[in-house]
Structures are given as structure tokens and as C-alpha cells.
């Protein structure tokens, strides 16, 4: 009978000890969990109120009480620790969200600044291009005036020479007649330029300026030819995407080098006139082919006149 009592005492003692040990384990577990949270480099500084609340709940767990009271305190302490963790994590996520929002704004700002920069550069480039075009047009206008003056002087000199030689030689007579012919053709030059027709050549549609557009033996376009280039300008502007090839040709009289040079200078003159009329300079290439590509025989005056020409070609295939 006595041993039964002892057993009972021992049993109760063991149960109490087990309860106390379990009690301690729960306390240690939650305390360690809270310490981990407090020591966390990121979460440790966040949600201090929730953590303090959890500290109190865990502390209450250490104060003992009845078995049912302990279960309640344990539940509360666990929930409070959970809340402390979740609150710190939520605060951390919200901080991250704030950073991402600021980054979002920075990206948008940078993009709009790049766009603005691009628009500014575009505007600046266009301004410079139009300035350059205006300058080139001005330069060409001045050059044209200068060459017109040169031509005027040359004509006056030629007339004088002509008068001098007039009575003396047959050659002078011929020269005078040629000059008269040139004068006469200049009269209907405008009409002929206005009646220019585009034809299809090997490299694309083309228009041919014949040599009456140029003063005899001169590289520059006649002033009246410049004024009536509308047809040609309309032709090249019909397809602004295509590049323009300007080929100068001569007849076979004179040296090959001189002819090549003259044809190049005439092609350049047409190029300059087109640029002055507003055609983009970078569309145009001008070449002097000299006497290499005749379209007629060089043994008649008519054939030679047809060979002296400038072809303006709207290229089907860009050269580059």
C-alpha cells in the first residue's frame, strides 16, 4: 500500500518535471526564434513594436501558471512571434517596393531624357543641314554671278577679237558664224530645256542636257539654262529615294584628258545647279567620261553635237 503511494508521488513528480522540461523547451525555442529575428541584418531593424509585443508574450511563458494557462500563453507567444516575423518581412517587402518604384521613375526619366536628347540632336542636325544647304546655294549663286561676269567679259573680248579678225581671215568669219549660231540657239534654249523628255537608259530613267545648255568651250551652265532647269529638277525629285548619277560626255575633238576634265566640270556644273535648286547633295554623284561613250559618230558636226551632252540618270540600283 505504501509503495503505491510512493509510486503515485513519483508519477506526479515525473509528470511535473516533464511538463516543466517541455515548458522550458517551448520557451527556449521561441526565445531563440526571436533572437534570430532581432539579429537578422535586414529584418532586425524592422517592425520593432511587433517584436516587443512578442518579447512580452514569450516572457509571460516563462512565468509559469496552470497547465491550461500555459497552453494559452504558448499559443499567444507563438502567434506573437509569427506576427513579429510577418510584420518585419512585410515592412521589408514594402521597402523593396519603394526602391523599385523609385527605380521605375528613374528608368522613365532616363528614357525621356534620351528621347529629348535624340529629338534635340535631330533638330540640330536638320538645322545644320539646312544651313549648309543655304550656304552652298549662296556659294553657288555667287560663283554663278562670277562666272556670268567672266562669260560676259569673255564674250566682249571675243567680240572684239572677232571684229579685229573679221575682215582679215576666213577662220574669223567661221568663228563669227558659229557665235551667231550659238546666240540663235540660246534663244530657244529655254524652250528646249522645258521640253526635256525622260528616256530609259541602261542604268535607269535619264534626261539628257545637250551642249547648247553650256557656253561653247565652257564648263558652266548658261544663266538662262540654270533658270529653266525646272523640268530636270522635277524629274529627279519624282523619286527622292533614288540616287542621281550625272555623266558628262564630249566629242572626240581635243585631247582625251582635256575632254575628260571638261566633261567632269560640266557634270559638276549640273550637279551644282541641282543642289542650288534644293536637291540633296548626297544623292548626287557626278562623273566626267570624256569621249569614251559616244552616242553618235564623231565624223559629222551633227554627230559631235549629239555626243557633247550631260546625262542625268535616276539610278535604279544605288551604287552603294
Amino acid at each position, binding site marked *: 500500500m505504501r509503495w503505491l503511494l510512493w509510486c503515485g508521488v513519483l508519477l506526479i513528480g515525473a509528470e511535473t518535471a516533464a511538463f516543466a522540461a517541455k515548458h522550458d523547451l517551448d520557451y527556449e525555442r521561441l526565445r531563440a526564434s526571436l533572437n534570430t529575428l532581432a539579429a537578422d541584418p535586414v529584418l532586425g531593424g524592422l517592425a520593432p513594436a511587433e517584436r516587443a509585443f512578442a518579447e512580452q508574450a514569450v516572457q509571460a511563458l516563462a512565468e509559469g501558471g496552470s497547465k*491550461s494557462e500555459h497552453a*494559452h500563453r504558448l499559443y*499567444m507567444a507563438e502567434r506573437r512571434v*509569427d506576427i513579429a516575423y510577418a510584420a518585419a518581412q512585410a515592412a521589408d*517587402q514594402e521597402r*523593396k517596393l519603394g526602391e523599385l*518604384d523609385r527605380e521605375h521613375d528613374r*528608368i522613365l526619366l532616363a528614357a525621356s531624357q534620351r528621347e529629348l536628347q535624340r529629338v534635340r540632336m535631330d533638330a540640330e542636325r536638320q538645322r545644320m543641314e539646312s544651313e549648309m544647304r543655304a550656304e552652298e546655294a549662296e556659294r553657288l549663286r555667287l560663283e554663278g554671278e562670277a562666272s556670268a561676269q567672266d562669260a560676259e567679259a569673255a564674250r566682249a573680248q571675243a567680240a572684239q577679237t572677232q571684229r579685229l579678225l573679221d575682215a582679215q581671215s576666213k577662220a574669223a568669219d567661221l568663228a563669227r558664224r558659229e557665235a551667231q549660231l550659238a546666240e540663235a540657239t540660246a534663244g530657244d534654249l529655254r524652250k528646249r530645256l522645258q521640253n526635256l523628255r525622260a528616256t530609259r537608259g541602261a542604268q535607269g530613267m535619264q534626261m539628257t542636257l545637250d551642249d547648247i545648255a553650256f557656253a561653247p568651250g565652257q564648263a558652266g551652265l548658261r544663266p538662262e539654262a540654270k533658270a529653266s532647269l525646272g523640268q530636270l529638277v522635277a524629274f529627279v525629285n519624282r523619286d527622292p529615294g533614288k540616287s542621281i548619277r550625272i555623266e558628262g560626255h564630249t566629242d572626240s575633238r581635243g585631247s582625251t584628258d582635256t575632254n575628260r576634265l571638261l566633261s567632269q566640270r560640266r557634270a559638276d556644273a549640273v550637279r551644282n545647279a541641282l543642289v542650288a535648286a534644293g536637291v540633296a547633295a548626297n544623292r548626287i554623284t557626278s562623273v566626267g567620261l570624256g569621249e569614251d561613250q559616244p552616242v553618235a559618230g564623231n565624223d559629222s558636226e551633227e554627230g559631235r553635237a549629239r555626243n557633247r551632252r550631260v546625262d542625268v540618270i535616276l539610278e535604279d540600283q544605288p551604287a552603294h
Partner: protein
Amino acid sequence: MTPNRRKIHLGVSIFLAALAGCGPTKPPNIGLDEAVRSLAAARDAGAPTYAPMELRNAEDHLAQARARFAKRDYDEAANLVQEGQADSELAAVRARLGKAREKVDARMHENADLRQRSEAGDNPADAQGGQP
């Protein structure tokens, strides 16, 4: 006023006081109303989506608290109310956490997308600038 009347007044007062003291015991305030408000707040915060388990715990605890309260087991009811209250708070804060995580994810993708598009938007401009 005669001394006699005063005595009567005193007697009535004492009687009323005694009556009040002997009436049926008024149930204690165990914070049930506040716990119900916390539960509603957790639902509003999005707990049904982000913390359904915690919300269920809160509801269960409050239901148990009401049952205990009806049986006048006020101490246990008060404990259950506290537990339900803590469940509601946990549900609300986990809902807040879930929402914040979703927003962070969405914003991260959005930013990556935006960065990629703004870089891609740069390239054609560079290519254009490089043309003769």
C-alpha cells in the same frame, strides 16, 4: 425636512443599493467586440486570399469563445478571444506581406521590361545615326 424623513430616504437608498448588488451577475467584457472587428479588418486586408488558414483559426477561436461565453465559462472564453484576436492580427499582417510580395514581383518585371524596351528603343536610333 424632518429627521424621520431623512431616515426613510437613507433606508430606500440602502435598499436600492442592495437590490442592485443582488441582481443577476452582469457578464464581463472579454473583448469579443474588438476581436470581431479585428476579424473583419483581416478579411478586408485580403486574408481570404493571402492567409486563409490563419483566418480559419481566428473564426474557429471566436466561435469557441462564444460557446464558452454562453456556458458562462468566462475565463476560457476570454483566452479564446485573445487567441482569435492574435489569429486575426496574424492573418492581416500575412495578407499585407502577400500583397507586398506580389507588388514587388510585378514591379520587378515591369522595370526589367521597361529597361529592355528603352534599351531596344535606343538601338534603332543608333543604327539610323550610323547610316551615311
